[in-house]
């Protein structure tokens, strides 16, 4: 390190003198807001797997209306489409603040869709998220992710203190599927095309989980239910 001149050292010392009343980092007792923590977590994120996750979320936020499809084996609730922005997977600010700030317990599906196997090459594991890739016999892929809630805190509602995890742009229709104990948000592509990519989101109030399927018809809803209900701590 290059030594400072007398002038430079004097500048530095007087500057530090002006901050002499600031306590040491470990002595400062402050509870940052969930929104701040979520923003700063994104800011300090290291893992490159975020790149695809951010792209997928950005795409998910741009999908259009699609007709609901029948799922005989599952109860379904159709969300009311509207012309305004709607939000899904809403939790209280306290729940999000109390949730793990990092992946404390890796939770992954123990069931792999029939005919698929782990791709491994696409897997990523980091402090704030886990991503697993699976590839089918014809090269089609699906991905499972576990992320911290703070990463998805997109909108705070000051009237009731809730924070939504998923933001849906106007005139979108999505489905909420009740799979096991979870309410799973299914988000469809812009075109009325069942073969386009589909995203599934759900939360256990500790983490948020996603399944991204390249093709909405690559496995059945029964297979989807098996995957979702098979997630367990590693």
């Amino acid at each position, binding site marked *: *390190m290059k030594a*400072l*001149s*007398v*002038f*430079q*050292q*004097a*500048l*530095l*010392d*007087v*500057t*530090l*003198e*002006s*901050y002499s*009343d*600031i*306590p*040491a*980092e470990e002595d*400062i007792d*402050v509870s*940052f*807001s969930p*929104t*701040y923590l979520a*923003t*700063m977590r*994104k*800011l*300090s*994120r*290291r893992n490159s797997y*975020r*790149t695809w996750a*951010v792209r997928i979320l950005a795409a998910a936020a741009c999908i259009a209306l699609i007709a609901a499809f029948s799922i005989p084996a599952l109860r379904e609730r159709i969300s009311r489409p509207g012309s305004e922005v709607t939000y899904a997977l809403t939790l209280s600010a306290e729940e999000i603040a109390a949730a793990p700030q990092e992946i404390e317990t890796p939770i992954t599906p123990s069931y792999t869709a029939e005919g698929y196997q782990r791709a491994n090459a696409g897997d990523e594991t980091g402090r704030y998220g886990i991503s697993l890739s699976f590839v089918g016999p014809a090269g089609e892929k699906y991905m499972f992710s576990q992320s911290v809630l703070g990463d998805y805190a997109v909108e705070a509602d000051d009237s009731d203190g809730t924070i939504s995890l998923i933001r849906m742009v106007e005139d979108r229709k999505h489905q909420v599927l009740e799979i096991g104990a979870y309410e799973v948000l299914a988000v469809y592509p812009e075109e009325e095309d069942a073969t386009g990519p589909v995203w599934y989101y759900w939360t256990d109030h500790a983490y948020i989980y996603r399944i991204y399927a390249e093709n909405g018809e690559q496995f059945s809803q029964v297979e989807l239910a098996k995957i979702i209900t098979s997630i367990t701590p590693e």
Partner: protein
Amino acid sequence: MLAYAAMIDDPKEKSRFVRLYEGYQKQMYAVAYRILKDQMLAEDAVQTAFYGIAKNMRSVPSDDEAQIKAYLFTCAKHAAFRIMEQENRQKSAADQLIEIYADAPSAFSQVEEADDYHRLVAAIRQLEPIYRDVLLMHYVYACDLDEIAEKLQRKKKTVKQQITRAKKQLLVLYERRDCV
């Protein structure tokens, strides 16, 4: 909000950024809160400061804790001032200062090359804080005008004026016999 770490291509710089955030965010918050007296606004100031830091990681000193601290705190302070200005819709006092030292001789090199530490400290203590900060960024951290403008949330033209005024004011203060 943008994934700021994603703005940093170099993995080492990205890792360094994370260490800065984890090591100093509370203190930077305290600096901002001291000015803004509001948690939300202080958090905004810290985020704004880190945004600027992420964009110019190469300007952040890497070895000396004192230099790192002064750099980060100065960024947080000026982010807070900017928010305060926006909240109060007032121009900062520094921008309104009359250039009372306009006619001072431009012999700043005698200050730059001075070896009387205590006399320098005494003169710098009397300098307007905004002028001290622009000199700090310019002389200690070797930031150019664009970088200083980004860090201190000022226009480039304003920064240029402030550096000129700062040098003139400090020269006069240093030359005054009663400043020690």
